């Protein structure tokens, strides 16, 4: 027993890993389309049991239009009351996931579909956060290097002296080293003394 899932996503780079995660969990990925494609045609052709779409996608209204056409078209899962609990749907919505499914889909499958997708998105999100942190750290180090170089140039210090001076100034002011470096570069060494 499996469910055919259609993924509608504007960001193809994140669709592929989701498709893999779904396949690994036993779902059949019927297709991956972008919002620009003719969704009426795609849904009629691929006949998915469930559709995953970004909660903020304007194309959701197109799916709403299909949902009223008959039982063979996926509908918003909130209305499949017996199959879902509101808390799960709410949590999924917070992660930006919106799910449509046909009437009669197994509640267990549907729940598992939402959970696998949520886990995947959470994973992606923490990866994105880690990447942001790494970029910030790199940014900070560049600032400190530039401030240090400036002290070397303007005050004739050695690199090590400049670094210690920066650290002392930051400690005295209760500032982060990168923040002090940024201020020093903006206002010059005199202001920061």
């Amino acid at each position, binding site marked *: 027993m499996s469910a055919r899932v259609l993924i509608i996503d504007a960001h193809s780079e994140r669709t592929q890993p989701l498709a893999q995660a779904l396949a690994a969990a036993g779902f059949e990925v019927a297709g991956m389309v972008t919002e620009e494609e003719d969704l009426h045609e795609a849904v009629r052709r691929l006949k998915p049991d469930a559709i995953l779409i970004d909660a903020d996608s304007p194309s959701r209204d197109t799916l709403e239009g299909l949902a009223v056409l008959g039982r063979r078209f996926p509908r918003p899962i909130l*209305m499949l009351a017996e199959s879902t609990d509101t808390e799960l749907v709410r949590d999924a919505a917070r992660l930006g996931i919106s799910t449509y499914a046909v009437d009669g889909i197994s509640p267990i499958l549907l729940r598992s579909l939402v959970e696998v997708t949520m886990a995947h998105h959470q994973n992606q999100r923490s990866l994105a956060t880690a990447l942001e942190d790494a970029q910030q750290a790199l940014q900070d180090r560049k600032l400190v290097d530039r401030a240090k170089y400036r002290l070397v140039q303007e005050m004739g210090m050695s690199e090590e002296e400049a670094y210690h001076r920066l650290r002392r100034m930051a400690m005295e002011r209760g500032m982060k080293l990168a923040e002090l470096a940024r201020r020093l570069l903006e206002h010059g060494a005199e202001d920061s003394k």
Partner: protein
Amino acid sequence: MSRSGAPEKKHLNIGFIALTDCASLVMASELGLFRKHGLEVELYRQPSWAAIRDRVTLGELDAAHMLYGQIYGVHLGVGGPRTAMAALMGLNHNGQSIVFSNRLREEGAVDGPSLKRLLARGERSYTFAQTFPTGTHAMWLYYWLPAAGIDPLRDLRMITVPPPQMVANMRAGNMDGYCVGEPWGGARAIAEGIGFTAATTQGIWRNHPEKVLGTTREFAERHPNTARAMIRAVLEASIYIDTPGNRDRVAEVISAERYVNAPAESIASRLRGEYEDGLGRRWRDADYMKFHDAGEVNYPYLSHGMWFLTQFRRWGLLREEVDYLAVARQVNQIELYAAVAREMGVAVPSSPLKVETLFDGITWDPAQPQRYLDQFAIKA
């Protein structure tokens, strides 16, 4: 502050769609009217009507700019989840358009009858779009086409497209016509040279109901003071918008990127009642978009909600008979609204039912909904 007491909930999130008729919510915020009545309101632009529905029913939005038909669809669970809803007040009348593509004009269709003749030739299939299956635009298009003998369910392919994407979709050649709210109707389509206005919705139904301020019934019952404060702030904004001389300022404010995100002039001209159809006809439309009209716009007439229910029946969206009047009484919060209106000296009509005649000469008498429905030959 209203005499009705302090709001039970002060911090509110209100959703809207990028359309000219979100103006009273935006102006209530920009003019400080929510704050004046004890509310701290954050406005959130929403990407789709589905998002509006989900976020209002899940409680992430406390209230929203909603399509009149949509709020009834949600209340009855038509095509989507069912949640008891509350329409606090009407937000506007008029100001939507049915647009045809230039390709249709080249093929000879410029109005209903000529479209009927074109369809009869059967040269190709034709696609029309509306904004939400239970929405007002769907109902206007579904009402207007049959008057020319066109069956919207059988003679055309009907799709759903969100308002700000209509113009792009027509430019891409994905559709032959659509019904949508301004500025995405006539104004933008003409400015971009892709289509023309085949009909205005005020031409279908003079002073028709359009958007409402919607929330869930649970919210309205648990927060009556908050609901009254919202109604009061939006009523004051509506009066401001309908005061001559304020409309250019309104167009300027709502044109901002975080609101409608369209050139101010494409909003302003039709907001002032200056119309052109894109085929060379220009006119001053007395029935342009109204936000107050001495309270006629804002009073949530039960007969308006009932009309949408008759159309849901007509098009097979509502599979079982319902008590039209009883449902309208559940949704439209006439007592909440009337309390605020009386306090402000805004006229409250003596009856919540209004008899109105649409452009095809057929009279909508809310006392006879079944007889009204029986008159329509084209239906699901």
